[in-house]
């Protein structure tokens, strides 16, 4: 099998890499581009730890082929903060103890950001269903849901 040359944009930067035809976007991000913030918890799209955006749409990067990133824009956790300035969701997650071990946190932050861009005033139920594809085994979700709702309220006031 010959490798595929992929030209794409990751977190605003034009990048290129060679990948196997059957390689996932998650593996390419982690192993070829050194972006290990996206995590593999299952490899089957059940846990959401690998969540990224592809042209703004929330996807599990373990279910996307790396070659599909050609000429698309990928957004990962590494691109969420602006330099030293954390995204309001990131700041709120720390303040409200919305993480314990932190392995699911990148995926949940990417998913929550995608939610608030789509729906700036979600109900608790809407947050819970939007994040239903992101497993967290430590927190019981309570503090995560509260942090997302609280950030949404802050952003609406801003």
């Amino acid at each position, binding site marked *: 099998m010959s490798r595929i040359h992929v030209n794409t944009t990751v977190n605003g930067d034009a990048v290129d890499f060679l990948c196997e035809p059957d390689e996932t976007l998650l593996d390419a991000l982690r192993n070829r581009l050194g972006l290990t913030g996206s995590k593999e918890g299952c*490899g089957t799209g059940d846990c959401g730890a690998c969540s990224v955006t592809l042209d703004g749409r929330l996807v599990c990067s373990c279910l996307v082929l790396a070659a599909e990133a050609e000429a698309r824009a990928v957004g990962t956790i590494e691109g969420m903060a602006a330099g030293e300035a954390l995204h309001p969701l990131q700041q709120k997650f720390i303040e409200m103890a919305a993480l314990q071990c932190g392995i699911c946190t990148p995926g949940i932050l990417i998913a929550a950001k995608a939610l608030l861009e789509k729906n700036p005033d979600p109900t608790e139920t809407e947050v819970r269903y939007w994040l239903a*594809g992101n497993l967290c085994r*430590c927190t019981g979700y309570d503090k995560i849901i509260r942090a997302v709702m609280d950030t949404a309220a802050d952003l609406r006031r801003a």
Partner: protein
Amino acid sequence: MALDDQSKAKRVFKVVGTRPLRPDGVDKVTGKALFGADLTAPGMLVAKILRSPHAHARIRAIDTSAAEAAPGVKAVVTAADFGAPADEAVRDVLVNCMAHDKALYDGHAVAAVAAISEAAAKAALKLIKVDYEVLPHVTDVDEAMKPGAPVVQAGRQVETVGEGFSENVTNYCEFGHGDVEAGFAKADHVIERSFRTEATHQGYIEPHACLASFASDGKADLWCCTQGQYMVRNLCSQIMGMEASQLRVTPSEIGGGFGGKTTVFIEPVALMLAKKSGRPVKIVMSRSEVLRATGPTCSSSMDIRIGMTRDGRITAGLARLRYQGGAFPCGTVEMGAMAAFAAYDLDAVRTEGWNAMTNRPKQAAYRAPGAPMSIYGVESVVDELCQHFGLDPLDVRMKNAAKAGTKASYGVTFTDIGLSACLSKAKAHPHYAAPLKAGQGRGVSCGFWFNFGGDTCVTLNVNMDGTVSVTEGNPDIGGSRASIGMMAAEELGVTFDKVRTQVVDTASLGYNEVTDGSRVTFAVGLATIKAAQAAKTVMCQRAAKIWGIDAEAVVWEDGCAKPSGPNAGDFPPMTLAEIAAVSSQTGGPIAGHHEVNADGAGVSFGVHLVDVEVDPETGATKVLRYTVFQDAGKAVHPSYVEGQMQGGAVQGIGWALNEEYIYGDDGRLQNAGFLDYRVPVASDLPMIDTVILEIPNPGHPYGVRGVGETSIVPPLAAIANAVSRAAGVRLTSLPMSPPRILAAMDAARLAAAAE
């Protein structure tokens, strides 16, 4: 300065009890934190593991020649590459990492390949020929105990287990006091029921991962996600036949453990592949491998018998527990038997436990191991007795609650405990008075965990710029760097931001037991406080030297060294920063150490309250409202205490309603993925309300108790009691999946129609 003179109850804290930002927070929200699978090394190989497709099979031969010759393959290992460790428990760990003469369960590792790429390693696995002789298997605990059951491993009985069992029964235990039969005779009603719980997995989102490097001079390095780097070093050095000092283990950030990362599964394999290939080797498990081959908890079958007077006094309790912990001897049932009746002050109580081996993966600890199942059985029968007499379930528990001075069924006499306080708080809480609608039910359960202390070692360095570095050896799973740093700041009288806490490798600090047993905030906190006190003693000596007075004439108050009184001399107080700045002139660097085998962890109790609604058409259960009451001793960082209470509750909800290992008739695991092994998701749940109680633990300078494990204990019975009341029929088997609830409701309807 004598710490033990301080009145713990009245102590006013400045840092402890506040909610500072955790020091590893930014790394974890930006993706910078390095977890097990995020580590790489130059020249690194990738290894994959071949696993048995059979539940039980003799391995006649393994031919690895074709795999060894495959492109890109640098090393292949099987059991033949390993020696036999002298210690039996270590040998079991090795055999679990790599099958020897038999594959003992579906997913048991039989060989491993290290290659230049994952694809090359996977391709080579297909070239390994294993000659299996498939053997009869057993996966059910009751079946495994019967005479004539397929024998998983011969000759492994640990204790005398009694007559009439198969060779799979390895362990037996019994606890209790008083005359149980006389107690039952005094009861106005006795209920005996049998219960079953299925095996559940810890379900950490981060699969096991490690990176091993082995130099030709015999020195090795291992990086891995683990709950205890020293445990990994001790197991791996014994398995590899090397001295502990020659193996340095560095823990990565850990993506959840819950007990499942208190042993090794892949680390010895990576080390052996690294040794054979001369290259660093990385292994990352897939989710399917995690579910098939790493530590689920025990499944159980049990009989519980309890007698009660009509005014709600428990006259006697009897529990017979049968746990299976997979293909090796396992003592978890002992903790279940000790914990079963811990919440109650009983004159007559007896618990017995048996462990049976089955063709399932070797169980690993899971949050309060052994306790959730037995307490589920006991709390279910107590609830049914309350229903029988029409008594309030919280009143009955208060009437029988263990308290200071109670002799527990497992022999100890409790000191200050918070059970009655939790029950009173629950009774007074608005949740308990809230109205329920038709089809809804409210459940209550007590929970208990022993809590551990254990070997602990802390070094605290006072830096010349007035900052403090705490060096500890327990991986931070849920914010312990914060709680440890807070206790150091509290004791030294500096602000939290002046302290940085590091979790270090095995070469940098003395031995620490694993992050388990709810021990870290208690034991590492204790050692940190004592290390800080040692540093304060040094700082007082330095101030005395500067002032030219006796060291005994200096005290430490409010973060400063001060003369102890007017007779000692008149000197302005010196702060930690001022003393540190001139340390080079007064005797050199300032540090404090403490090494201890900590006891006095202090048992932990909690009470959970839950409302559910059961859909009579589908049997589906919705959790409507949940409140956790738990004694934390002293909550160091209340947000993370709440987090432990919430997280444990939700794991317990999963255990009660969804999660189970499902085996086919062929003995193979049928749901080795998160789609079919369904842990609770956000949309399944309400908010989990928490009420922290603080009944100081006499065994800790600040009164701290561990809080990590108790919270998983009550949900099983609390949910079962709520579901049973909502559905109008007693549920006795977990998980209470919709088909099970429907079947129970249908059976109850038929029985009612027949009467």
